[in-house]
């Protein structure tokens, strides 16, 4: 506690040991937390205030393979595992980055991006099924409360957009790692100053955040 007070009152950098890029990413993620919280709290509000039954996620998100019985929520479970796996590979990429192991870092970043793209692809599949097959619309659906569609498309859409942006930036960072741009002083496009492997860690923070948001969406939207 004493350390917190002296850090904050030190008249220089409050976040000691944290590069500016990382501090800015954390502040962005904090603001993003509030955006997603607003979505999830609005979801709570419409669901609690609706006199009509909320559609049953277990049945709605069930899939059957071949002629088999529908397995509840199976696609969502696979998507969850994929995102967690991508978080694991990202964490390892950060570690290899600080060791200046360019090949492993780039490889792990590309694997992370691949899992991210797979996640978005499965989400596109899920949306298609819900729109075309189940007739879910933002203004109504055949299963229950009319707000379901609006909440679903807004929350998962915004999350999917975050994943898509993450995939693009993962590939950009992977390319820069591979070309050695974090070692030879090449100036960054956005920052106009030489980058370093801290950028991999900052990128990692964003990617883990996307995974973190999915933990909450999975719990509140799909399982509740």
């Amino acid at each position, binding site marked *: 506690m004493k350390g917190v007070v002296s850090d904050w009152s030190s008249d220089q950098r409050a976040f000691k040991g944290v590069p500016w890029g990382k501090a800015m990413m954390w502040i962005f993620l904090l603001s993003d937390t509030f955006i997603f919280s607003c979505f999830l709290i609005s979801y709570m509000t419409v669901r609690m205030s609706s006199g009509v039954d909320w559609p049953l996620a277990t049945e709605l998100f069930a899939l059957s393979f071949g002629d088999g019985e529908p397995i509840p929520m199976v696609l969502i479970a696979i998507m969850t595992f994929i995102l967690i796996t991508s978080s694991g590979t990202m964490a390892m990429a950060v*570690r290899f980055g600080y*060791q200046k192991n360019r090949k492993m870092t780039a490889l792990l970043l590309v694997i992370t991006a691949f899992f991210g793209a797979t996640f978005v692809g499965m989400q596109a599949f899920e949306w298609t099924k819900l729109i075309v097959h189940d007739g879910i619309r933002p203004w109504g659906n055949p299963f229950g409360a009319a707000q379901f569609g609006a909440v679903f498309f807004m929350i998962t859409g915004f999350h999917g957009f975050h994943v898509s942006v993450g995939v693009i930036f993962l590939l950009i960072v992977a390319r820069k790692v591979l070309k050695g741009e974090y070692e030879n002083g090449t100036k960054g496009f956005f920052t106009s100053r030489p980058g370093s492997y801290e950028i991999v860690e900052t990128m990692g923070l964003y990617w883990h955040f996307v995974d973190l948001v999915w933990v909450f969406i999975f*719990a509140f939207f799909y399982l*509740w």
Partner: protein
Amino acid sequence: MNMASAEAHVEGQQHPIGIYFKVWILLFVLSTFSYLVDFYHVEGYLRWSLILIFMLLKAGFIMAIFMHLAWERLALVFALGIPVTFLLVFIFLMTHESDYTLGLRELFFIGGGA
């Protein structure tokens, strides 16, 4: 090399790779548990508390290990953690707001009007 980058280089978050594997497996297990809550149709307060416990555990491990918050200085952890607690106030407010809205809806729409 200037001071700032020399300092930052030493400061970078480096941890043994084993801990990432352990947390990864842990997250897999916790996700499986929360999936099983749905699969076996656990209902009521048990369902909700299990979902919340698994969710908070997963979120905690992601933040502490993957996002390295366990090793960051408290000045940063507090700057991030304290604003988030205000969300509880927001949730409290909106819970009461929805109860009130639902009450009105039941009175005028679902109950057929007073």
